[in-house]
C-alpha cells in the first residue's frame, strides 16, 4: 500500500483554494495506488478550512505548527516535509504548482534525492508506476513521463484538477514542530489590491493586447473582470507588458504565465505563437478582434469580429444581467 502526501498552503491562517485541487489530485493518485491521502499544512497556529478537506478526499489532515511558519519559510518547510516523507511510505508527494509550490517542491525533491515533475496537468498509474503529463515549450507540446521508484514528487498546475467532493474522514490532527525556520526569511507579503486574483489561478481570465490602443483603456477590461463578480483576473499580451502598460505579473505567454482558466477572453490580441502557447490549454476561449484573419480565431472556441470598444461594454452589460 502506498499513501499520498498532499502538501497544502495557507495564507493568513486560512487554507488556500488551490489546496482543494491538490487534495483532489492526490485522491485520484491514492485511489490508483490503493492508499490514503494525508494532507499536510504548515502554519504558526490553527488553520481555517482544514475541516473542509475531508470533503475533497483527505483521509487525515495534519497541521504542523512552528512560530516561524506563519509566512513561507523555505528551509524550515523543506526540513519538516522531507522528514515527514522519510518517516512514511508514500507513493507520491503532491504540491500545487503555485509560487510557493514551485519553490518548495524542488527543495524537497532534492533533499529526498528524487526527481520532480512540475506543473503536471494529468496524472495516473500505469503498471504500478506514476505517469504524468506536463506542458513543455509553454504548452506547444506535452511531455508524458514515467516516474521510476518512489515517491513520485509532483506539482499540479492550478485550475486543471477541478475540486471534486469525494468525502473521507478528514481526521484532523495538530502538532507543534521544533526547529529553525531557516536562513531565508519572508518578512512580509505586500498585498496587491484587495480582491485582485492572480491570472495563474483565476477561473476566468480577461486579457488585453495592443488592440486596447493605450494603457488607460485597460479600464474597460477591469470593468469586464469586475462584472464576473470576483472570479476574473486581467491578463495581458507580451507586447503591452514590454511597452510598460501592464505589470509582468499579468503577462500570459511563453515568457509570462501559462494559464488554464475555465474561460479565457482575448480582447484585441492578435495571437502571436508565444501568446497562444500560454493560454491554449484554457477550457473555453473567446476572442474579440477587429481582424477576422487574426490567428487568435484559430484557437478560440467563439469569436466576435468587431470593435472591442463597442463589444466589451455590451458584454459587461450582458454579464451583469446574468449575475444581476
Amino acid at each position: 500500500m502506498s499513501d499520498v502526501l498532499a502538501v497544502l498552503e495557507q495564507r493568513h491562517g486560512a487554507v488556500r483554494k488551490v489546496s482543494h485541487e491538490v487534495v483532489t489530485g492526490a485522491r485520484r493518485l491514492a485511489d490508483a495506488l490503493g492508499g490514503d491521502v494525508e494532507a499536510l499544512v504548515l502554519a504558526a497556529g490553527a488553520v481555517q478550512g482544514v475541516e473542509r478537506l475531508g470533503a475533497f478526499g483527505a483521509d487525515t489532515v495534519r497541521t504542523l505548527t512552528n512560530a516561524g511558519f506563519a509566512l513561507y519559510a523555505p528551509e524550515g518547510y523543506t526540513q519538516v516535509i522531507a522528514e515527514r516523507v522519510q518517516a512514511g511510505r508514500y507513493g507520491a508527494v503532491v504540491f500545487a504548482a503555485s509560487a510557493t509550490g514551485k519553490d518548495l517542491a524542488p527543495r524537497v525533491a532534492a533533499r529526498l534525492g528524487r526527481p520532480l515533475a512540475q506543473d503536471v496537468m494529468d496524472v495516473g498509474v500505469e503498471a504500478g508506476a506514476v505517469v504524468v503529463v506536463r506542458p513543455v515549450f509553454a504548452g506547444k507540446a506535452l511531455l508524458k513521463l514515467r516516474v521510476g521508484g518512489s515517491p513520485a514528487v509532483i506539482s499540479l498546475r492550478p485550475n486543471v484538477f477541478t475540486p471534486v467532493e469525494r468525502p473521507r474522514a478528514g481526521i484532523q490532527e495538530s502538532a507543534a514542530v521544533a526547529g529553525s525556520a531557516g536562513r531565508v526569511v519572508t518578512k512580509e507579503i505586500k498585498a496587491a489590491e484587495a480582491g485582485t486574483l492572480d491570472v495563474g489561478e483565476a477561473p476566468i481570465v480577461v486579457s488585453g493586447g495592443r488592440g486596447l490602443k493605450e494603457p488607460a483603456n485597460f479600464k474597460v477590461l477591469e470593468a469586464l473582470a469586475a462584472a464576473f463578480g470576483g472570479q476574473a483576473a486581467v491578463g495581458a499580451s507580451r507586447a503591452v507588458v514590454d511597452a510598460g502598460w501592464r505589470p509582468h505579473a499579468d503577462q500570459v505567454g511563453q515568457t509570462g504565465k501559462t494559464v488554464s482558466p475555465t474561460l479565457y477572453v482575448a480582447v484585441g490580441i492578435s495571437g502571436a505563437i508565444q501568446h497562444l502557447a500560454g493560454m491554449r490549454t484554457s477550457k473555453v476561449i473567446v476572442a474579440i478582434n477587429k481582424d477576422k484573419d487574426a490567428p487568435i480565431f484559430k484557437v478560440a472556441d467563439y469569436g466576435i469580429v468587431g470593435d472591442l470598444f463597442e463589444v466589451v461594454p455590451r458584454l459587461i452589460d450582458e454579464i451583469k444581467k446574468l449575475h444581476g
Partner: protein
Amino acid sequence: MKIAVCIKRVPDSETRVKIASDGKSLDEAGVKFILNPYDEFAVEEALRLKERAGAGEVVAVALGPSAAQETIRTTLAMGVDRGILLQTDRLPADGLEAAKALAAELAPGGYDLLLFGKMAIDDYNQQVGPMVAELLGLPCVTSVAHLEIAGARGVAEREIEGGVEVVEFPLPAVLSTDKGLNEPRYPALKGIMAAKKKPLEVKAAALGGGALEIVALLPPPERQPAKIVGEGAAAVPELVRLLREEAKVL
C-alpha cells in the same frame, strides 16, 4: 564579488514545435536557438552587481551540447568574464541530474552568488536553481523580481499570487531571476569582439540518466477554429447564450 550565472541554450520562443521521429524529442532541424530569456536577467544582474562592487568576476556556466558555446559567447559579449561548458549531447528529463552536474562544478568555485533564470522556456522544469541550492546547502530565493544586496545580506522580492513576498537571506546564496528584475543589455560590437578572446573552458559533463523516463512528446490537443458568433456588439447576447448553454462556463 564572484558570481556564477548558470545559463541554457533553448529554442527561440517563436519556434513551431515539430516532434522528432522518435516521438520523444523536438525535431531540431531549422530551429533557431537562443540564450534562455530568463537567464538574460541573471546575466544582467550579475554584471550590475560586479560593476557596483567595483571588482570581482562573473562566470557563465552552461550544461548542454557543443553548440552551447555560442550561447556562452553571447554572455561573454554582454560582459561576462569567462565561460564553462559542461558538455553533453542529451540532457535528461530529470532536472535533479542537471542540478547534480552543476553543483559538482560550482561547489569548489568560492562563489558569493549563483544566479539562474527562474526557468528554461523549453522544458519548463523550473527546479534546477533551488535543487543546486539544496545540494550545496545554500540559502535560495526563486523568481526574484527586485534585489538589493548590502554586504553579506540581501533582500529580494518575488511575485506570488495576489502579492509580493519580501525575503531576506544571507550570502553566499542561490537566486533565480524573473522578468522585471532589470533590462538586459545588448552586446555592443566592442563586447562581441572582446568575447572572442575571453576564456571558454569545455569539460565533459558527469550526468546520470535520472529517474524520469520520457514516454512520449505529444502535440497539444487540437482546437477547432472559432465559431464566429457574429460581428460587433449585436453578437454579444448570442455569445453569452452559447457560453451559458453550449460551453456551460457561465
